[in-house]
């Protein structure tokens, strides 16, 4: 029984991170019908941005405030990177066939990976441990089942981010516009929606969520390298397709 509960906790923890990444895939796919292969690399960019922010500001000791700064910083940078990719890689080829955009996505993915390998090398780096997970003992639930502080933080941050996303998509004007664009791009344009801006915003939000996933994973597994996004990106892609429902809470459950 305690093994079952423990694996459930492990699963929710890993699932929370995959869910954050999968949401970005879903949002972009919903709007452009494009599988954004560079999304896994945005996740990597997020983790590395967090790493460089922490190193340049000298934030290495365990502290929630440092984690918050690094998390928000990484999300902002990743959002900008996502918008740049959309503007300069996807928008120019959007008018051609869907296959063109797909190949462009693969190209962007390879470009980001190899740019990082060329600039900083493929050697793994150790992400600062903001939650003190190296020395802290987990909280015991019952029997052998235990939950660590890192797991609780990952879980809570993911839930908060998903609630915020839910609110943006269903309760704001921008969210309504996003849903309209995903429903029919041309009609949305005729209704006076600035579709380019909405698509750009979708990439920004999706990328920010992936970056959050990157920083959170790095708290759990401090080993980050420029190719970490490949496998994680592919794994996050599968729940996106297995999740049948379009509503986020249900999708989150399926992802877990």
């Amino acid at each position, binding site marked *: 029984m305690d093994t079952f509960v423990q694996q459930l906790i492990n699963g929710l923890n*890993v699932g929370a991170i995959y869910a954050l990444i999968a949401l970005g895939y879903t949002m972009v796919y919903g709007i452009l019908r494009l599988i954004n292969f560079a999304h896994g690399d945005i996740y990597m960019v997020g983790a590395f941005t967090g790493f460089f922010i922490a190193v340049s500001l000298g934030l290495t000791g365990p502290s929630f405030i440092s984690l918050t700064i690094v998390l928000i910083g990484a999300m902002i940078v990743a959002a900008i990177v996502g918008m740049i990719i959309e503007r300069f890689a996807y928008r120019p080829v959007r008018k051609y066939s869907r296959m063109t955009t797909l190949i462009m996505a693969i190209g962007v993915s390879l470009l980001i990976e190899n740019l990082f390998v060329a600039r900083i090398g493929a050697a793994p780096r150790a992400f600062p441990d903001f939650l003190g997970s190296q020395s*802290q*003992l987990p909280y015991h639930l019952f029997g052998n089942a235990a939950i660590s502080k890192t797991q609780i933080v990952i879980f809570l941050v993911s839930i908060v981010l998903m609630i915020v996303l839910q609110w943006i998509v269903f309760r704001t004007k921008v969210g309504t516009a996003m849903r309209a664009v995903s429903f029919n791009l041309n009609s949305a344009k005729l209704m006076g929606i600035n579709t380019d801006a909405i698509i750009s915003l979708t990439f920004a939000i999706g990328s920010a969520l992936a970056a959050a996933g990157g920083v959170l994973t790095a708290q759990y*597994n401090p080993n980050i390298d420029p*190719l*970490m996004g490949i496998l994680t990106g592919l794994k996050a892609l599968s729940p996106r397709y297995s999740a049948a429902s379009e509503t986020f809470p249900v999708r989150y459950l399926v992802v877990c």
Partner: protein
Amino acid sequence: MKRTLLSLLLITTLFIGFACERRGGGSNGGSTGPIVVGYYGDLSGRTSSFGQSTKNGAEMAADEINKAGGINGRTVQIVVEDDQGEPNKAATVVTKLINQDKVIALLGEVASSNSLAAAPKAQEAKVPMISPSSTNPAVTQVGDYIFRVCFIDPFQGEVMAKFATNNLKAKRAAILYDFNSDYSRGLYQFFKRSFTSSGGQIVSERSYTQGDRDFSGQLTAIRAANVDVIYVPGYYGEVGVIANQTKQLGIKAPLLGGDGWDAPQLWQLGGAALNGDYISNHYSVDDPSPAIQKFVSDYKSRYNILPDALAALGYDSMKVLADAIKRAGTTEGTKLREAIAQTQKFPGVTGQITIDPERNAVKPAVVLKLQDSKFHYETTIYPEGLGPAAPATSANSGPQSSAPAPQQPAKTQ
């Protein structure tokens, strides 16, 4: 105009061609000019700490040789290639070293999978290859031109199994190994064989692959099996994280590992979570033997970091090669191969090196304890028929002690 350009291009091409040709011709098998040795390793990939350390060690050895007048009056020059830690790239760069740089011998690789990919190229071209630290037995089985200066995994696995049963009194063990690595799979099998034959029980066997980010599923299953020790024969990148996640699940059993853990990055990834774990390794920087202490201080003044075992093995591989060239009196492939094969009791930093008929080195191994981001000498375990009889069970003098058991007397070079 166009014609001028074309002819200019043609002349340049020819010139470059000749330049390359001359460079190659001069160094291959000739008796003048520098002796060109190829080094290949992972300098920018996931195990780049290994490649970097080994390269540092080999280059330091080459410099020492050159300062002392070279080998038979000729200097040694090392050509370095980066294989990024990928087997197919290792094969490519080795082909380049053999065909383009005309190297007379190869030093490399650390990871057994990469050595296994490159060894057939060296064997085919009849260029002797000395692996500093590939411990998988299959590496030297590729052919009679492939050697190594380290012990092999059957022994390394046996050392840890012996240590677990004799010193830690472990009865139940779990194994967590890297499914895609020849090194890790080899150690897994040899540890299992040795541990079960000495009365222990392997109660849980789990695997992962390099690049995995979450190990909690495997570790939870291992925790449920209630074990005394967990054997994790992997590389430092994953091991640091595994140690971390082990502690987060509240597992108290110590982790045991091999020489693949030995890298400065291990401490950044694992930190305090690694306290109380043990590894088997090739040598210990705490060893008071003058040869080792001289090497440690030379290395430290040159690179400003303590040499890990891979640096020591890189150093030894270059020295063994130089010794063989000196004895052979030539750099010609077949004669050089013979000379390397006849290496007897060579006084290396990592112990006496004798190449056996299987082209492996027969050497003792040390067991190190991990505490406060440092390796502490624990005990030395000798292979059968070498050194002080049988495993030194009484030599367990505690983690803080830096007084190692008697090492084979090693003369300063």
